[in-house]
């Protein structure tokens, strides 16, 4: 059951990410990124992270991607032009990314026994468990992030405003 769910949603994740890479129009890329983020929420739930699964749907596939699609529609972004600015990205970038993937996959799979197995429904982190750490041990960082959000809002308004 767990393995079947993992394979379905991991497949959706990878398919969505590849679609993001292959689509030419930014709105198609944005919609496939929403698929990736929603399937990741299911994977978080399989790993027992309840609150983060909900937050992933609300914050990422909700708020952030709506912002992206709004900006794409606002700027009337059309199909991407195929200009080849830098050959270095193709020469060094792709082998680099492939080498990174190969190395990480090799390390993870060769130490697979040490990482252990995930069983469904074990170590469920409820919102209460998370908030106990967040509001007791990490209260100051939490408050600092609220200041960060405030500054980000002000910065976004100041940057996007029309200059006279």
């Amino acid at each position, binding site marked *: 059951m767990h393995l079947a769910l993992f394979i379905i949603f991991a497949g959706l994740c990878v398919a969505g990410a590849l679609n993001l*890479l292959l689509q030419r129009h930014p709105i198609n890329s944005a919609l496939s990124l929403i698929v990736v983020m929603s399937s990741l929420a299911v994977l978080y739930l399989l790993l027992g992270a309840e609150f983060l699964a909900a937050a992933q749907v609300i914050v990422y596939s909700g708020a952030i991607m709506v912002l992206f699609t709004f900006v794409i529609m606002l700027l009337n972004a059309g199909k991407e032009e195929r200009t080849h600015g830098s050959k270095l990205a193709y020469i060094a970038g792709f082998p680099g990314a492939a080498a990174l993937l190969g190395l990480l996959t090799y390390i993870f799979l060769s130490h697979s026994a040490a990482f252990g197995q995930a069983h469904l429904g074990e170590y469920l982190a409820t919102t209460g468990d998370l908030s106990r750490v967040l509001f007791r041990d990490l209260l100051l960082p939490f408050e600092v992030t609220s200041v960060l959000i405030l500054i980000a809002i002000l910065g976004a308004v100041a940057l996007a405003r029309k200059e006279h």
Partner: protein
Amino acid sequence: MVPIAYYLVLSAVLFSIGVAAFLIKRNIITVFMSIELMLNAVNLAFIAFSRQWSQVSGHLQVNGQIFVFFVMVVAAAEAAVGLAIIIAVFRARNTLNVDQIDLMKL
């Protein structure tokens, strides 16, 4: 049951696709979206490692999930500011192609 290593491999795959998309995409919004994809891949790795630590120590450990929470908060702030910068750049240059946006001076 699923080995936690599979989740980590999935995270590596998503991160590598994000890197590749960051390098070959020419639209500034799509480049920004591939950064979000990389952040999501790292979040998955954090949650998988948090689960592994719970298993090793024998009781629930949520520190990895707290990390993901902070990454989400910072990513939301970053998306707001980044998209505002993209709108400002589009107003000044009238293009979204990264090859034509290679000077910081407006």
